[in-house]
């Protein structure tokens, strides 16, 4: 068994005992990348040389006895974190040559905690998608079945982790882009509360929804990663100046007496029966641990996707106005004057899905339509948030499926944007309400595809979320499988 198959906390224990070095881990990680990357295609940039330098530095610190929580641990970064001196392309032609002159806050924090960066992972262009098929750099494949999508938009991070090409990874989640690929690739994915993690240096998609979070092999690792990246940042005015608890301290605590809400709107006709059954088994496990499950209602659930598909494109159309071929990135050589240069640069630089969303967003914000679309959606968003506020008066956490179906086939939904959007049906509500949520593996289909259960909590209740998910994970009775690659 290679060291690349272990978790952060397992590796930390062995580093502490001086049984292994960071270089040993990084060596195994790149051996694995060399063996499987050609088939999985998780990465847009592999940082082999700097990873071994990072590992050398980490080993120096280990020798001195300076152990940080992530010292020597190989981590993959979604390719929308600005990384000083390393291309940040966001899955797009328009940024295919962009070399950031600074590190984003999350990158800086991970570095300070001792992490080793393995590479930048593939993603749907500008994080717009649910399958990692819209990247300018090509399609990433699901390690559990190479004919299927890994989910998206952070599909490269989820696939790299499931394939043991890294020990943990980062992602961003605007409508499900961490939790959905985590579920489809059989790993843990956490979207923190809006404002919990700084987005300084993250390429923006929809600013009122975007949040950064970790992909990990188990819940304990998710707590370790959140400890490392959470906190207020003066460079990010929507980050919240609230103290960060030690998320690891919630793990192992009893969940007896907890109330778990089961919203009927998330168990609907049309979800895959194997997913329905797996999540219901998860409910039984939680009950067996002394928690009580109660039926609840989130009456505005059916409007989440419609709200999401107005608000996210509207904000994106504004955020993506900055890509104009002037300051960085791709510029078309065809424009004879400035206006033509803008149009040709953007039309050649963006892919179809990004253009589609810019068009929806621009239309929804355009004169005469603002009230009918953006304002209306923002009002319904208030009602969605109130649904959760009501629910959390009576329950500690909410449990739902993460996705309505397991991973679908590559190409199955690329011609049908609306069908693709329905992949986010259970995940976009958390972003609209700003609450934290987490996907944890809860079984496999008969065909061997992973299934995820989603836990949702109140604002800044990540500790409680991790506590329940950790208790579930320990007692789920689900065997730990690895994809056959």
């Amino acid at each position, binding site marked *: 068994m290679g060291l690349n198959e272990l978790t952060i906390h397992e590796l930390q224990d062995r580093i502490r005992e001086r049984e292994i070095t960071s270089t040993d881990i990084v060596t195994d990680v790149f051996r694995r990348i060399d063996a499987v990357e050609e088939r999985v295609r998780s990465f847009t940039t592999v940082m082999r040389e700097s990873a071994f330098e990072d590992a050398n530095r980490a080993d120096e610190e280990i020798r001195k006895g300076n152990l940080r929580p992530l010292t020597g641990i190989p981590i993959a970064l979604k390719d929308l974190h600005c990384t000083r001196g390393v291309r940040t392309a966001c899955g797009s032609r328009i940024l295919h040559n962009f070399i950031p002159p600074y590190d984003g806050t999350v990158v800086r924090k991970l570095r300070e905690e001792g992490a080793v960066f393995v590479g930048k992972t593939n993603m749907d262009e500008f994080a717009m998608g649910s399958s990692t098929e819209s990247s300018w750099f090509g399609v990433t494949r699901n390690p559990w079945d190479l004919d299927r999508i890994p989910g998206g938009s952070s599909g490269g991070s989820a696939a790299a982790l499931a394939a043991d090409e890294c020990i943990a990874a980062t992602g961003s989640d605007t409508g499900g882009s961490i939790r959905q690929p985590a579920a489809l690739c059989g790993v843990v994915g956490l979207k923190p509360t809006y404002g919990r993690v700084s987005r300084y240096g993250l390429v923006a998609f929809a600013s009122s929804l975007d949040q950064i979070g970790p992909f990990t092999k188990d819940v304990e690792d998710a707590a370790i990663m959140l400890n490392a990246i959470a906190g207020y940042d003066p460079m990010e005015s929507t980050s919240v100046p609230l103290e960060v608890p030690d998320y690891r301290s919630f793990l192992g605590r009893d969940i007896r007496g907890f109330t778990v809400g089961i919203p009927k709107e998330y168990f609907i006709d049309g979800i895959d029966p194997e997913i329905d059954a797996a999540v219901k088994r998860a409910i039984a496990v939680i009950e067996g641990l002394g928690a009580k499950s109660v039926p609840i209602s989130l009456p505005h659930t059916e409007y989440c996707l419609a709200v999401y598909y107005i608000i996210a494109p509207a904000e994106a159309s504004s955020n993506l106005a900055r890509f104009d071929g002037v300051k960085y990135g791709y510029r078309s050589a065809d424009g004879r004057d400035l206006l033509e240069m803008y149009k040709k640069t953007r039309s050649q630089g963006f892919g179809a899905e990004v253009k*589609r969303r810019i068009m929806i967003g621009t239309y929804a914000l355009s004169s005469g339509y603002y009230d009918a679309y953006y304002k209306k959606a923002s009002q319904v968003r208030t009602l969605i948030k109130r649904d959760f506020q009501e629910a959390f008066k009576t329950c500690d956490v909410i449990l739902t499926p993460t996705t309505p179906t397991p991973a679908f086939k590559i190409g199955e939904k690329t011609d049908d944007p609306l069908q693709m959007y329905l992949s986010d049906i259970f995940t976009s509500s958390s972003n609209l309400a700003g609450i934290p949520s987490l996907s944890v593996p809860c079984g496999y289909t008969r065909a061997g595809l992973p299934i995820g259960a989603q836990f949702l909590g109140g604002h800044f209740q990540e500790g409680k979320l991790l506590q329940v998910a950790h208790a579930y994970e320990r007692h789920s009775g689900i065997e730990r499988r690895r994809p056959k690659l």
Partner: protein
Amino acid sequence: MGLQGTKRPVSSASIRKPRALSHFGRYPLKITKDQVEYVAHLARLEFSEQEKERFTTQLNDILLYVEKLNEVDTTGVEPETHAIALQNAFRDDIVRESLPHGLSLANAPSESGNCFRVPKILE
């Protein structure tokens, strides 16, 4: 539930694509090809004829789908812009280190002196 309860165009019992009936004339078009051209100009994008046709159909589908929000009574409901309410985030007006010129221009497709160079703006 979920996608149920909507009169059109989503089928009530399953997660399926809303039938795009707009281009068969059953429902009024939400957006016409002319409007697609206008919005494209606002967004500084340009499309081939074929792309315009496809976008008109797809945008109609999406706009028809989001119409379901009209079922919700939002009278007197404040719009939500950020999930976590924050006051204005002020900081002291202190000069801090910023990117030097060279680094700021390092990614420029074209530059001249200390400036970004662009095609002509005026005739």
